[in-house]
């Protein structure tokens, strides 16, 4: 397991002892996705995924808290869908109908959108996965991979 801290994104590389098509299902089959996604203690009661370019997704995360269960909803759109190779989608907090909302505590509308990029590679029956989770500048929603251009800067700040 290797972790690289880029200046602008979380990059996690991890190898799973499973074939690439199974890892693809982990991300694209709602039932499989629900089984692992989210922080410890969270359950995923709802995962709707229209896995095709432009298709939407809606995920509910439920956490038990002293005051009862708390639900958080996330919506997004698939940007790249290349079976067993690459999956790119956006994510914003939303309500249960998929209407984008601002994170709690925030006044009016600065929805924070992030982009999740999953790249898979078959390594002799195992699967190497590269996850990149980056923020997307508000005025360039289509700037997939923009984060990469800043690699040089990471060295400067490090």
């Amino acid at each position, binding site marked *: 397991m290797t972790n690289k801290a880029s200046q602008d994104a979380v990059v996690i590389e991890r190898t799973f002892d499973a074939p690439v098509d199974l890892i693809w299902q982990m991300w694209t089959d709602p039932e499989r996705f629900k089984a*692992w996604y989210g922080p410890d203690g969270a359950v995923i009661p709802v995962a709707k995924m229209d896995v095709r370019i432009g298709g939407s997704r809606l995920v509910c995360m439920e956490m*038990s808290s002293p005051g009862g269960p708390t639900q958080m909803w996330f919506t997004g759109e698939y940007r790249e869908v290349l079976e067993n190779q690459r999956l790119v989608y956006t994510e914003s907090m939303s309500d249960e109908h998929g209407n984008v909302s601002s994170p709690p505590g925030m006044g009016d509308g600065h929805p924070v959108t992030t982009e999740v990029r999953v790249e898979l590679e078959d390594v002799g029956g195992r699967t190497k996965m590269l996850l990149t989770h980056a923020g997307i500048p508000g005025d360039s929603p289509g700037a997939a991979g923009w984060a990469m251009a800043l690699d040089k800067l990471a060295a400067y700040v490090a």
Partner: protein
Amino acid sequence: MVDSIGTLGYFPTWFISCYGKYQACVIMIAIDEDRLTETFSALANSTRRAILARLAEGAATVNELAEPFAMTLPAISKHIKVLERAGLVVRGQRAQYRPCALDGARLEEVSTWAEQYRAVWEASFDRMDDYLAQLQRQTKGRRTL
């Protein structure tokens, strides 16, 4: 732009950190979202990113920065002003040269913001590992039957 905790415009970004069996703890990380938006906007331009990449190698004058681009000096100056306003670039006071230099503080904020997600992902992938092992045991079990 506000730079103290608790003031309007400065709000905590939620972050789920750890969950015990009976109680949840939610850690709030304070990040100035307005400033983050400004930083992201400034970064959302390939010319400006190229300027920053050049400055990562060392300070440079506006003329030097303009060189690789097919752009007028005023156009480049405009981009530099955007970077300056976002706090990504600082200008020196040396006579009329006023060399530009990179200021890493804002980029670190972007990094801090992004890093919030790491713990959540790592926990998820640990669970994926367990789930995969469980699925593959089931498949093996079926095969041997």
